[in-house]
């Protein structure tokens, strides 16, 4: 089940270094006290570049909705079909969302509304990605 491997760039390196360290670190704007993910060169709310810092977040969220990829276009994921693709909102700021394949949850059996927490999954040697697991 090989997932596609993210390639870090200058803007995303801190984020992926964090993930490889099993930490979820998002951009935070000190000026307007908001989180930002994926990272951008400046705060999307106030435009500030200098006030952006990196902040560890708790990694708790909820499942907003989901689809099941039955006939996608990504070669590397074909053997996984059908697989869940859930939309996870972050509890600390529900305007931030993430994707998850919800490891361990059979396709079509996604408990929408359930609490999830971040976990980390290896997609290549020395490369983790952030995934989410249902809790409780």
């Amino acid at each position: 089940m090989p997932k596609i491997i993210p390639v870090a760039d200058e803007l995303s390196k801190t984020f992926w270094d964090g993930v490889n360290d099993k930490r979820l670190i998002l951009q935070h704007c000190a000026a307007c006290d908001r989180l930002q993910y994926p990272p951008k060169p400046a705060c999307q709310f106030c435009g500030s570049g200098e006030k952006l810092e990196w902040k560890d977040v708790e990694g708790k969220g909820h499942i907003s909705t989901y689809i099941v990829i039955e006939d996608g276009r990504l070669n590397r994921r074909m053997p996984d079909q059908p697989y869940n693709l859930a939309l996870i909102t972050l509890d600390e700021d529900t305007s931030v969302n993430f994707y998850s394949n919800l490891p361990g949850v059979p396709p079509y059996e996604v408990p929408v509304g359930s609490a999830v927490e971040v976990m980390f999954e290896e997609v290549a040697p020395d490369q983790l990605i952030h995934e989410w697991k249902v809790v409780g």
Partner: protein
Amino acid sequence: MMATQNQYQWRRDKDGLGVWDHRGKVAVAGYGHSPVDRRWDERSMDQTLGAYTILACKLAMEDAGVTPAQIDGIICCDSHIAGGSGGTASNWAPRPYFDPPYDSELGLTLINGEWLAKVMELPNVKFAPTGVPTIGEMMGMAAQAVADGKCNTCLVIYPTGNLEGRYRRGGENAEDYAKGARQWVAPWGNHGGNDFINIFPHNQYCLKYGGTHDDLAPFVINQHRNGLLTPWGYNASHGLEQLTVEDYVTSRYILNPLRLWDCDRPVNASAAYLFTTAERARDMKQPPVYVLNHSQHNFPNRTTQPDLDEIEDWTDRAAKRMFEGAGLGPADVDIFNPYDGYATMTQFYLEAFQWHGVKRGDAFAFYADDIRVEGPHPFSSSGGNLGNGRTRTAMYTDSIQQLRGAAGPRQVTVRAETALAAFVTPSSGGWIMFGKHPS
């Protein structure tokens, strides 16, 4: 001969720009369609994207009654979505090429103004920009270019290519690594497209307002019905049978709940439109169809996946820009041809533009009512991409035909004096408003 105009600032892509200065001063005087094939067979030289584009241009010129010497502008989209993955990976090459003018990729899977001017022997082309965007924006670019005097009699061309193999399975979709924007989505299975943009908000829509995915059925079926009333389209020209509710609700899933019949069929085809000044158009063969406004939008994602709130905000803003620039409101729009290249997004446009009073959450009930062309609410009278294949041109051609009173069996029975058409996503693209009258 050619002026390359990469720096040309033509977009109307901000809030609060007011009425378009050139409202009613530009017109569409002609259109032409090639046959619409499923794919180019890589052998028939009279069915290449180039041959089809030449044909479409000739038909558009004939429709308007203009000669090759009168053409002084060619605005042709550079990206033709052909082949394995679309974009640069879609080339027919590397193979041995053919005799001129098919001795390179140009004319087979790529078309540009320079190549066309040469093979069509258009001696007076002075404006043939590169970097021309896809049709939703291109129509606005053409309107603005004629208004600004960049050219007076302009061919505006949208070729859509399709080769053997499953659509867009090559290129970066075949790669093991995800760079740039794809690093945030591809590891989990999102290849980045209008399907993913809209399917999550569509689910949220069903939850928020009530309804289920298959409430789209009457809309999809009506698109197919209108498509079968469109002789040039893929469905009508290939003798397809009318899609039924049964067909729809039993069709296989692509991105569950997105079904096969929510998706448009990739095709190999070309279409051309003849844009000119309103003044010149009045002396041409057809009644002019005036451009009342063009507007564009390109809204950045706030986070990984746009949600329903974001989609509603974006489409509201796009509607406001369009109405403001045209000096019209929802009740003034007679013909409404929003984009349907995935059935799951059209409700967002319908409700944002409040066509026939449809407000947020009302779309499924509206779809279930009478939306046939002969009825009181002839929604998407073109049949769109779902009814005609993925040419992305039906919305425009139908709008022009309706205002001319020449839509044949699709001619609406309600008033047809204004028409709004688009190729868009909620986040990006453009709208154009046409009028039977210049003001």
